[in-house]
């Protein structure tokens, strides 16, 4: 949980006096109250979605939910996959054609 508090502090700053974080759970009537003294913070999720935080509590809740103030510009999973595949394909092709050559020479 310590790591969690550090994350919240990194993204949202220090908790204002008298405010501490608790999990609001799944209450559909729960509303994040705007704190006029809180300087708006922008958070991002892994899909690149953006949300503006209007209070420290709201910000802490989002950070606990995996949001962050660092925007990871398009985590390119497909790029990573492609280069891994290219490496496998090159090795695979070399082995395959060496094997074919051997068979051809044998014949």
């Amino acid at each position, binding site marked *: 949980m310590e790591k969690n508090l550090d994350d919240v502090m990194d993204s949202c700053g220090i908790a204002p006096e008298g405010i501490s974080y608790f999990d609001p759970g799944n209450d559909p009537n729960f509303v994040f109250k705007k704190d006029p003294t809180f300087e708006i913070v922008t958070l991002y999720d892994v899909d690149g979605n953006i949300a503006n935080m209007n209070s420290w509590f709201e910000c802490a809740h989002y950070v606990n*939910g995996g949001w962050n103030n660092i925007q990871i510009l398009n*985590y390119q999973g497909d790029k990573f996959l492609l280069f891994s595949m290219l490496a496998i*394909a090159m090795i695979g092709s070399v082995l395959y054609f060496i094997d074919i050559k051997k068979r051809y020479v044998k014949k």
Partner: protein
Amino acid sequence: MLKNKNSLIGFIVIFLIIIFPFARHDSGDIYNPLPIDDSSIGYYQSTTCNISLSEVYLENLGNENFRYNAHNYAGLECYGKVTGVDKVGDTFIVSIGTNPSFSFLTQIFLWSFILFFIRKKDTDVFEPTNISLIVVPIIFTFQQISEERFYIYENKYFNSEFSFSNYNLFIIFIAIYLYCILLNISLRTRISNIINYIPFVFVVVGTFNGFNLNFYVLLFVILGINNLLNGGFKSRYNKIYLIFTFFWLLSPGDSYTFFDTDKIRGFVNSSNTISSKAYWILIIGLVVNGFYLLYVKSEINIPLLVRNSLLAGSSMVLLGLSGASSNLINFLNFYIFGQNKTGIRTFDSVAGNTWRGFSASAESAGEFYGFILLLYFLCFFYKKISFSYADMLMIIVVMFGLYKTNNFAALLTLLILTVATILYHKFGAKISKRNFFIVAISFLVIFGVFVTNKYDYTYLSTELLYEASLHSNLYTNQSNYQKTTLITEFFNAENLNTLFNIDNPNKASSSLSGLIEIYTPTIGIPLVPNLVSLISASSVLINRTEMWGIFIAKYSPNMSETFFGNGPYQLNNYLYSHEIRLDLPEEKLTSLFLPHSSVADLFIFTGFIGVGLIFFWATQLLQKKSGSNYLKILVFFLFLNFLKSDSILYVSSVLLLLLSVVLIKENKSVNE
């Protein structure tokens, strides 16, 4: 079985790669799994892509009030992790990220390594072409573009542009390229033995997650290319196929329609565009060529085939039941075996039961179980296999599976054909063919008299047309109840002309109009039953009136489609081109209504000429004498069952049909 150590290692490595993302656990992270209930939905919604499947599973051991759902439209970072929890009714749905690009890689390699477990020959029996290494990846990468509308909803990384930054297309290309290499290596020594392992296609279903593509289609396309490059181009089949292609491309239909593929994903065209049509025409043409090559190269090993059939059948039953009892196994069954849909989580034999996801329909599962039992019986009866207690155990499991599919037709045909085989064996030599036919026709006449005594003849002969009319868009301004009343009145008065031509001109589909014309001929031939009456009476007897009625109401082909069809595995025009008003309960209106007859399916794809040619070819094939004449009953069994099911739409059932055809060719005798 596991002679090849390298294959086993490869298989285990790929299996672990598949399982790892789902089983990942980081004890140092701050996102702890919670018991799934109303209070934790919000937590899971706000901690997406942080908690793995295994973490949720272990936290909720014993709680079966939720099910896992594959969430394809999630990035690689969410693979194997919870991407959200929702509550539908009383059940919680836990979505697990299963990005299609990565799923495709893992599934294609896992299943490729499974091919290496097929027994191999000591020497090369086949020299596969290397041209397929380039051609096949191009074809299947092209599918992404041709069926854009399907893929755009399935994969976050999908992009239809041709550019170097479109990594997804390159991933697919390279994965298929590697698959071709693995397959070429495997085919060299195993092509003749593949046929003996066909029953396992009912266990490893092979539909790629998030793709409209099946593993076996890939395999047969590669074989098809090999067949074409070995002189197959000149075959009569390919020449006829080219003629059909001309007509299929000429009649494009409404290119905006889209079929989400539902339970037949992987083996059906989702789109009606020219490029999509061209892709499926090419694919099915190559698949059929692949079938031919496998037919020629196959060597049946009866004891091995029977054992594999029993193993596959009993595995399907046991895995299916495990999936019904555990939400985790249900999800893993879906993912590892490439099911089209997750299995139904009930033990009951209910309507719509898809045999736990291993089969798209309970009917095709029933046909498979029936096929296994009939195969075992025939091989045992004709002394091709010996008795074993292990076989008996598996037979009991398969019998239980057949019982649970609720497929009465499969059970009945199995019993009739078994008794017929015994009787033929006992009296076949003593009875001449002429006497046999006299007895058979006498039975038919007695049966006909019995049926017409039980039901009213007019009812039997018009019930199908009546049912089709109920589902047609007649009396558009009236309610369904009023429509039914009016239609019933006209049918009772035998006044179809007023119903269709005066009150509702151009409202009936061309199929319904055509059948009405046949039903009311200007010249009647005495003693020859009307074709429509015959089909109608048959539909009543086999409980297909409603489904065939809906098919007739829906399908409205033009002239070209009537004779040549819409193209292979193209259902868009059938599903969407003609407006209907189903006379069904509200909750059923959005269901997928397939024709419920493989002949009707073939009629949609290839028209009258195609169906005629297929029947002509089938008759020729059955007339050929071979050393395995006794196995022709298997083809007959499948044929009878396919008449009333959509099995031709399912890859596994088509491959089962292929197996039955290979079984009756002049096989070299191969024994254990």
